């Protein structure tokens, strides 16, 4: 925290120092515009109180230069001057001043204005930090429209962890692992990335979050980070869309590389949030729900979409399915009723 004050008249400068110090804020004082620019760049003060009438470089010119430099452009400025006329006040604001005080000023009024500016600056800085975190966390995983919605209302994001219902989808390329023995690694990776690009685009189009890639597999989440009342249906429609697209998509590859995609989808409670160590974190879901979706995908073969009864209950009437019976999932006592999406 630092407040920078600039006034060429010794007594006026001392008064500013006294007022700011009485508020228990660290203060730096300078007597001309050149020093303002230098200290602003080097020490990044939280507020500048700037006298307009200074020899050499006027306060207006200092303002202009501060705003031209990206490293100083966002520092709030309160202009101080003996000029009481409306024209110079308007001029000051047009250059980007945040506030204006006419000399002689009441020290208590100055204190209130300083307090307001610093509070606003603090809030702006906090909001920027939150927005940066949201960008870093989600930009690669969700559609740009979702990032925009999150930035507009950051309160919707709970990175600390929350228990909520989600739909998890696992997609995997059948037979990819065995291909790795017969195909040049560079070519194989290019093929894999072509599949993943198609899959990722369609997940995002359907409002899903691409959670992670696991080798040739993809894990996607729905109903997070933004709530989606139709999350189960969105996941199943994503899978159907990818499946319908596949024949045409395969045309670019030789038959050996035309792989079926297997899907597993389950809906249930999971813990959502940033998982990892402080310097290496990932927004993801953990819990049994994730394991069941992965298990369903493991049971799927020949390009089938397998969903659990929990997912089916949330999409009833929306599409045709075939019951497959109950499956046992490792680590769970009760069995999971399974359906194939037609």
């Amino acid at each position: 925290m630092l407040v920078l004050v600039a006034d060429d008249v010794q007594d006026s400068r001392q008064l500013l120092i006294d007022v700011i110090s009485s508020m228990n804020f660290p203060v730096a004082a300078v007597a001309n515009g050149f020093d303002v620019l230098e200290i602003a760049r080097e020490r990044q003060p939280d507020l500048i109180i700037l006298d307009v009438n200074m020899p050499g470089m006027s306060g207006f010119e200092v303002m202009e230069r501060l705003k031209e430099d990206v490293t100083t452009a966002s520092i709030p400025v309160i202009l101080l001057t003996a000029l009481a006329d409306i024209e110079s006040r308007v001029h000051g604001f047009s250059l980007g001043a945040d506030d204006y005080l006419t000399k002689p000023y009441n020290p208590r009024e100055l204190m209130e204005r300083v307090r307001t500016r610093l509070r606003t600056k603090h809030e702006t800085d906090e909001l920027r930090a939150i927005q940066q975190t949201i960008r870093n966390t989600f930009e690669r995983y969700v559609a740009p429209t979702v990032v925009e919605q999150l930035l507009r209302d950051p309160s919707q994001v709970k990175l600390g962890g929350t228990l909520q219902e989600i739909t998890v989808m696992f997609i995997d390329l059948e037979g990819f692992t065995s291909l790795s023995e017969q195909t040049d690694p560079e070519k194989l990776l290019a093929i894999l990335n072509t599949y993943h690009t198609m899959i990722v685009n369609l997940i995002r189009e359907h409002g899903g979050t691409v959670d992670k890639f696991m080798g040739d597999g993809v894990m996607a989440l729905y109903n997070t980070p933004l709530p989606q009342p139709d999350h189960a249906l969105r996941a199943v429609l994503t899978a159907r869309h990818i499946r319908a697209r596949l024949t045409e998509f395969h045309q670019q590859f030789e038959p050996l590389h035309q792989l079926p995609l297997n899907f597993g989808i389950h809906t249930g409670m999971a813990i959502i949030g940033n998982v990892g160590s402080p310097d290496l974190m990932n927004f993801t879901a953990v819990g049994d729900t994730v394991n069941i979706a992965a298990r369903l995908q493991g049971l799927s073969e020949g390009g089938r979409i397998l969903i659990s009864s929990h997912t089916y209950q949330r999409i009833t009437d929306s599409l045709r399915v075939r019951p497959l019976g109950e499956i046992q999932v490792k680590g769970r006592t009760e069995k999971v009723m399974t359906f194939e999406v037609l």
Partner: protein
Amino acid sequence: MDKARILIVEDNHDNLTLMQDVLDSLEYAYLTAKDGEEAVRSARANRPDLILMDLSLPRMDGWTATKQLKADEQLAHIPIIALTAHAMTGDKEKALAAGCNAYLTKPLNLRELAGTLKQYLSSSDSAT
């Protein structure tokens, strides 16, 4: 029985994709139009069983297109479901005033879309 045919009027790619997926899953057939003028032309030529009408469209907006369709006695019976932006208060009222039979708000709830389609298409089946 012939598949029900639906005209989707929507200029946004992602929304169009989602609606097509829902219609595919319900095994309805569909046509698409990207603006109000195209919607009116297509409705006259193809006589769909139902129209999903986005309201904010280029060239001719959804309200104007709906009014024209409802003023045409050959087409007035076709149910029109309006798609309104969630944030725009007043859109729903304007949609109903223009003659839309129902409205859905965006972002679309796809289950709600499926339910509304079933409701309107089964009632028109039983009427014939």
